[in-house]
C-alpha cells in the first residue's frame, strides 16, 4: 500500500470507495507474545492477596461480625444448599469487588457512541442505584462491526413497515404455521450471499449450535473441537452424545495427530470404526482475536475424509474482501466447508443464527432440528433488518454502501492495531481481525483499566477468569465501521494515558515508540 493512498484515506473515506485497503495476500502471521515473568509474578501475588482477604472476610461473615450482604434462602432448614459455598467464593470475593465493570446498562442505540446509565453503589457493588444521569461514551464494546446498529435511516423505515404488515411474531413453530414469505426470502438471499445451495435461519445464535449439532452427529461419531470454542459449540457437542477430543488452539499438527490416532484405534473399548468425524472450528475467536487456519483445515479434512463445521459468528460480514467471512478472506472454495454456521447478532445488528450448505444437509436440518419442531420462528422485523443489510452487502444498491462499510472496517482494523502495537501494548490475534485483545494480566488492572477509560469517556470490555485463563486478563476492543478516524485517535490517546498509569506498555517485541501521522 503506497504512502500517498494511505494519506488520502486519512482525509475522507468517502472518496475512496473501490480501493481495497485489505492486502491481496491473506496473512499467516499471528503473534502471541510470551507472558513477561514479572507480570505473571505480580498477577499470582494479586490472586493470593485476594484469596487471603476473601477467607478473612468469610470468617467474619460466618462469625456474624460482618453482615452477609447477599440474599439468603427462604426455605426452612433441612434443604440441601442450592449452590455450593466454594463455587461462590470466587463470586463473593473477587467478582463482586469489580462487579461495576460488568452488566452496565445502556440507554441508547449501541452505535459508535453509547449512553451509559449512570449508577452508583452505596455498599461496594452489592447493589446499585441509578442517579438518572447518562454518560456519553465512545463505544468500543458492542459487536457492531459494520455499523448497522442505527435507529434511523432507510433500514429502520423498512423494519417499522414490516411490524405493521406482519406483526411481531407468528406464534407458531417453523414446522407448523410459523413460516412466512419473509423467512423464505431471507434464506434464499443468504444462500446467494454465501454462495451455497441453501440456508436455514433460526431465532437465536446460541440455540443454532446447541440444537443442531445433535442432529448431525450422534453416538459412534467423533468430534474434534478447538480448545477455545464457544460455550454453545461445547454444549451442542455434549448433547449429541459423540466422543469429543480437544486439540490445542489452531495447532494443525496436533489435530492431524489426533485424526490419525483416532482413525487407527477406532471407537474406545469396542474399536469399531467411527461413523463420522466432525471438526468444529470458529472463524474468528472472540477472546483471542485469532483466525482459524482454513486452507490447512480443508486440506486435512480432505485427506482424512472428515467433515468441517465452521462457526462464523464474529467473522461473517467482518472479514474478507466482499465481507463473506473467513472463506472469502482465505479465498477458499465455499463447497469445501461442509457446514457453514453464523449469527446475525454481530455484523447484521439483529438477532438469530443460520446454517448454510448443500441442499440435502439443509433439508435434513429442516426435518430433524429441535428448533424447527419446537421453537417459535424468527420475528418478522428482525428478519427485515437482516434482509435489508444483506441487500446492501450484496452490492445491489447504487451507492455501494455495503462495500464502503467493509472497506472502512478493514481500514479501521489496520490503523488501530498498528497504533496499539506501536504503543507497546501486548496485542494478541491476527493482524486483520476486528477483535483486538490487549493483555492486562491481573484482575486489579482489569478493573482499573475499565474504570479509568470510563472516566475518560470510552466504554471498553475487560475480561478475566473464567472467560480467559487465570493470569491472562485482557481488554478487548471491538472495532466498527461506524468509528471515524477522530474517534479512534481519541480512544488511542486515552489508552496511552491509562497504559502509562498502569504500566502496561511493556511489550518486548514492539517496544513503545512515538507515532508519526505519515507512517503507513
Amino acid at each position: 500500500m503506497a504512502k500517498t493512498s494511505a494519506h488520502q484515506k486519512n482525509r475522507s473515506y468517502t472518496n475512496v470507495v473501490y480501493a481495497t485497503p485489505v492486502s491481496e495476500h491473506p496473512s499467516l502471521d499471528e503473534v502471541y507474545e510470551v507472558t513477561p515473568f514479572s507480570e505473571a509474578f505480580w498477577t499470582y501475588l494479586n490472586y493470593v492477596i485476594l484469596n487471603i482477604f476473601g477467607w478473612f472476610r468469610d470468617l467474619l461473615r460466618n462469625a456474624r461480625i460482618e453482615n452477609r450482604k447477599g440474599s439468603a434462602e427462604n426455605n426452612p432448614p433441612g434443604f440441601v444448599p442450592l449452590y455450593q459455598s466454594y463455587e461462590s467464593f470466587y463470586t463473593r470475593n473477587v467478582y463482586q469487588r469489580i462487579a461495576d465493570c460488568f452488566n452496565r446498562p445502556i440507554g441508547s442505540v449501541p452505535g459508535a457512541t453509547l449512553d451509559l446509565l449512570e449508577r452508583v453503589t452505596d455498599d461496594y457493588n452489592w447493589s446499585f442505584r441509578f442517579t438518572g444521569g447518562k454518560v456519553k461514551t465512545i463505544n468500543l464494546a458492542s459487536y457492531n462491526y459494520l455499523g448497522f446498529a442505527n435507529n434511523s435511516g432507510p433500514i429502520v423505515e423498512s423494519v417499522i413497515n414490516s411490524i405493521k404488515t406482519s406483526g411481531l411474531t407468528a406464534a407458531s413453530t417453523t414446522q407448523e404455521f410459523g413460516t412466512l414469505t419473509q423467512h423464505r426470502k431471507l434464506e434464499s438471499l443468504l444462500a446467494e450471499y454465501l454462495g451455497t445451495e441453501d440456508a436455514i435461519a433460526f431465532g437465536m445464535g446460541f440455540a443454532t449450535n446447541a440444537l443442531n449439532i445433535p442432529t448431525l452427529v450422534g453416538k459412534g461419531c467423533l468430534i474434534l473441537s478447538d480448545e477455545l470454542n464457544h460455550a454453545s459449540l461445547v454444549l451442542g457437542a455434549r448433547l449429541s452424545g459423540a466422543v469429543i477430543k480437544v486439540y490445542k488452539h489452531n495447532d494443525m499438527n496436533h489435530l492431524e495427530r489426533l485424526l490419525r490416532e483416532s482413525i487407527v484405534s477406532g471407537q474406545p473399548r469396542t474399536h469399531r470404526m467411527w461413523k463420522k468425524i466432525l471438526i468444529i472450528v470458529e472463524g474468528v475467536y472472540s477472546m483471542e482475536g485469532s483466525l482459524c487456519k482454513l486452507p490447512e483445515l480443508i486440506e486435512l479434512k480432505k485427506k482424512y475424509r472428515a467433515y468441517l463445521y465452521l462457526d462464523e459468528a464474529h467473522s461473517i460480514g467482518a472479514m474478507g474482501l466482499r465481507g463473506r467471512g473467513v472463506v472469502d478472506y482465505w479465498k477458499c472454495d465455499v463447497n469445501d466447508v461442509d457446514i457453514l454456521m453464523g449469527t446475525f447478532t454481530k455484523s447484521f445488528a439483529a438477532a438469530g443464527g443460520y446454517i448454510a450448505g448443500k441442499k440435502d444437509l439443509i433439508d435434513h436440518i429442516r426435518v430433524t432440528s429441535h428448533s424447527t419442531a419446537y421453537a417459535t420462528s424468527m420475528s418478522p422485523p428482525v428478519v427485515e433488518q437482516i434482509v435489508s443489510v444483506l441487500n446492501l452487502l450484496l452490492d445491489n444498491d447504487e451507492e455501494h454502501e455495503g462495500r464502503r462499510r467493509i472497506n472502512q472496517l478493514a481500514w479501521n482494523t489496520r490503523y488501530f492495531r498498528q497504533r496499539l502495537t506501536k504503543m507497546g501494548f501486548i496485542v494478541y490475534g491476527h493482524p486483520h481481525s476486528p477483535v483486538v485483545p490487549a493483555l492486562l494480566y491481573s484482575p486489579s488492572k482489569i478493573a482499573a483499566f475499565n474504570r479509568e477509560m470510563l472516566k475518560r469517556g470510552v466504554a471498553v470490555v475487560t475480561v478475566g477468569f473464567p472467560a480467559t485463563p487465570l493470569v491472562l486478563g485482557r481488554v478487548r476492543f471491538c472495532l466498527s465501521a461506524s468509528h471515524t478516524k477522530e474517534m479512534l485517535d481519541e480512544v488511542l490517546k486515552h489508552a496511552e494515558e491509562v497504559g502509562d498509569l498502569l504500566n502496561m506498555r511493556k511489550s518486548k517485541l514492539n517496544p513503545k515508540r512515538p507515532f508519526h501521522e505519515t507512517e503507513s
Partner: protein
Amino acid sequence: MGSSMTRGDIESLATDFYDLLESFKHAPFYHISFEIFLVLAVIWLVFFRKPRAIEKKLTEREKQELIDEWQPEPLVPPVDPNHPALNVRVLDGIVGKTVEIDGKKSLNFATFNFLNFVGNSRISEKAIQAVQKYGVGSCGPRGFYGTIDIHLELEERLAKFFNCEEGIIYSYGFSTIASIIPAYSKRNDILFVDEGVHYAIQKGVEASRSHVKWFKHNDIQDLERLLAEQEVLDKKNPKKARTIRRFLIIEGLYVNYGDICPLPRMVELKYKYKYRIFIDESVSFGTIGQTGRGVTEYYDIDRQKIDLISSSLEYSIGSIGGFAVGSSFVVDHQRLSAQGYCFSASLPPLLAAAAIEALNIMEEQSTPLFETIMSKSKRLHKKLLSIKGYSVMGDEISPLKHLRLANALNTIGRLEEIVQFAQTRDITITVARYLTDEHLLPEPSIRLILNVEMTDEELEFLCTVLQEALVKVTS
C-alpha cells in the same frame, strides 16, 4: 493267556527298582534339586500360567492402510421429500385471529395466540417507538453492554406481576428452561420429572447430567413411590444424602396433554421430602387464574413456596423470548451460570417493549379478560365432547386441547386429512408435530388452541366442520 511275566522278570523288575532308589541316595544334590525343579515347572506350566496377551503394535504401513480404508457415512441420511416439514405452508401477513391462506381468510385455531396480542396495534406502536430509540439488535451479551434499560424494566414488571423478588429474561423461549435446569442441577443431583413434559425440558434435563427419575404423567402416587424409595436410600447413607439436591420439574399446564398439574399435593410433599419445585408455566401464564397469574393463582397457593416459575414470552404475551421469576437468592444464580443467559446476545429491545405493553394490557383488562378465556374454553370443551367419534384431551378450562379420533382409528394420516378438509372450509388447525426422540412420544393428535376473541358462532362453526370432517374420513 499265559502270563508272559515269569518270576524271574518280576525279580529283575524289583531289583531294578531297588537300584533306582539306591541311586537316588547316591546322586549329587544338584541333580535331585534340578529334577524337582523340572517337575514343579511342568506343573506350573500346565495349570497356573496365564495366557499372555500378544502386543498389537501396528507398523506405520498398517496404520496408513487403516486410514486409507476408512470410509465415513454420508453427513446426512437421505430425507423423504414428502415429509411435512419440507412442505410447510408459507404464510403472508399477520398471523392473528385470521390467517390468509391461498388468498382466503381462515379462522386460526393453530397458533399459540391465546390473548390475540399478535398484530395488536398498541403493542406494535410501542415496538415501533423502541426501534426508533434503540435500533433492532442489542449487539452484545448481558454482561458486556447488552443490558438495555428496557430489559431491566421488563424484569421488574414481571417480578411485580408475580409478586416475586426478582425476574430474569432470556432471548429464546426454548432456551429458557433448557438453560435453567443445568444451572442448578449438577451430576450428583436428583430430578423428579413428569413424563409428559415438553421437549425443551427434556433437553435441559439431559444437559444437566443429573439422575433423572421419571414419574407417570400427573400421577401423584407414582411420585410418592419414587420419593419414598429415595428416602430409604438416603437413610442408608445420610452423609451422602446431605450433598444431593432434589428438584421437581413440572409444567403448570402441559403442552402435550392440556391438563393441569396437581400442585397442592406436590407442595405438601415438598416440605416432607425436602425438594425444590420448578414449574414451567409457558401455557398457563396468561390463560388460567383469575388475573392470569397461572397455576399458583388457580390453586391459591402462596408463590413463596414455589422456588422458581419459568415461562415463555412467545405464547400469551405475543413477543419472543422467555423469563423466570422467584426469590433473589434463586434467580440471581442464573446471571452467572445459565448458559443461555451469559453466552448469548440479549433480547432485541423492540420485543422487550412489546412484552411490557402486553403486560400493561393484561393488568388493565385483568379479571374480565381471563374469566372470558376460561369460560370460552369450558364452552368449547362441552361442544367438542358432544361430537361423537372424537376424544378430547385436556382440562375443561384449558385453552389448549388435544383432539384424537376415538377407538383405534387414530392415525396421523387420518388427522392430516381432517386438517386438509378443514382448510377447504376456512378453518386452520394443525396436527401437533414432534421429533421421534421424545422421551414419551404422545399419540398423534390435533392441537386446538382457543383465541380469546373467538365468538360463539365461530366456535360453533369449528365444531360443525370437525363433525363433517369426521364423517368424510371414517366413511
